[in-house]
């Protein structure tokens, strides 16, 4: 099995997501497991207004890349190959936006972190 990051780009702010979408996010690990994959990790981000960018010494109040769809969260899945990973990523509930699937070069959770 290979690991992929599924990055969620969504125009709707997390606070405005309808409850059924939130629930679908909650069910995602189970649905992915049903299709022979596995969710290894997941992280949800606060909205971009809370982001701070650092370029060299300069600190600015903004996300690093400003786009209409903002990176709302990332989860890491295990899948057999890209076709399997794409099929699993398609299960992600999206209101207005999409996801990007990228193979992981490495993934590590440090003990005691």
């Amino acid at each position, binding site marked *: 099995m290979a690991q992929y990051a599924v990055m969620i780009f969504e125009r709707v702010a997390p606070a405005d997501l309808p409850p059924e979408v939130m629930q679908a996010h909650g069910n995602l690990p189970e649905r992915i497991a049903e299709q022979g994959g596995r969710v290894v990790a997941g992280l949800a981000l606060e909205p971009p207004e809370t982001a701070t960018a650092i370029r060299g010494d300069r600190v600015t109040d903004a996300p690093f890349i400003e786009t209409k769809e903002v990176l709302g969260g990332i989860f890491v899945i295990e899948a057999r190959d890209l076709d399997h990973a794409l099929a699993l990523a398609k299960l992600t509930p999206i209101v207005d936006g999409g996801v990007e699937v990228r*193979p992981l070069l490495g993934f590590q959770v440090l003990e005691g972190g």
Partner: protein
Amino acid sequence: MLAATVRVTRDLDAAEEAVQDAYVQALSTWAADGVPANPGAWLTTVARRRALNVMRRGRTLEAKLPLLLEPGGADPDEPAADAIPDDRLRLVFTCCHPALSPEAQIALTLRLVCGVATPDIAQAFLVAEATMAARLTRAKKKIAAARIPYAVPRGDELPARVDVVLTVIHLLYATGHTAHSGENLVRDELTGRALDLARMLRLLLPGEREAAGLLALLLVHEARRATRTDPDGRLLRLAEQDRSAWDRELIAEADRLLVETLRAGPPGRFTVQAAIAALHAQAPSYDETDWPQILVLYDELLRLWPSPVVALNRAVALAMVDGPAPALAEVETLERDGRLAGYRYLPSTKADLLHRLGRDAEAVAAYEAALALTGNAAEQEFLEQRLSAL
């Protein structure tokens, strides 16, 4: 051969190397012992053995080798000969994976499925050899890193994936056919490669009607190819082409395919395009073409494939059925739409319609706009000739 070797190596670069080594070994072995009964099978066996040896030596690297095949599929003892058609099909689906850019899909297909050398591919697509080599390397890296599978897609995914493959083959043929810029011998080869691929796909995917549709379409194009230009290389319009020189055998083969395909179920976009091309091929002359039927087919094509290019071609058929005025209105709508900005056939079609309506001053401006958009010598000459006739 490459396709069969990839199954062993799970890595495109390693497979290419093993195949090259097999050819080198063939040179010396065949010179000494004579050519074997089945040279292809001999080469494949040697290439696979060669690949296995290299892999055994590089065990530590194995964890990093991309898994280009479905789990448990690699059996190095399996006789290579029966595996070949299936392997070629898998390789086509890998090269034409939607996760790769269209440019990469077409380049990979030529390099890995057809075995065309990188400099020749670069020449055909008018890019520097280094650019094409980098494009191929990038694509192979993505196949490895993202684990694009080396497999025929599952049933429910198959039609959409077949469509990508057919689009690549069609583009390949069109590139050889239209020669966008300058004369180029390599481009002639592209049409042949595309036809071979279309035949292979039709054979290996008998249940996919669109594979038959594409083959029929390319056969009709091929039947008319020699008459697209005059002996001096000047482009001829469909109305001016010598219909007696069209290859009747190819047209008959396309017809048989089409009848069979249309009987099997509702047509897809390649089948409808083939039906339009076949109607042109059967007509005794341009004016005696069954234009009303062609217009009906264009309506169907536009429904299946709502592309502005299709809409422009439909306007040409509309002009033949209802006259140039309603057709010009359609073309002007397309012009305002903006999606065809920079597409040289829009102003040239518009110019022709304006001329037929007696609005020559406007036609001149439209021909000049078309001229500014084409880099192809034959097309430039054609447009200049139309322009001077006004």
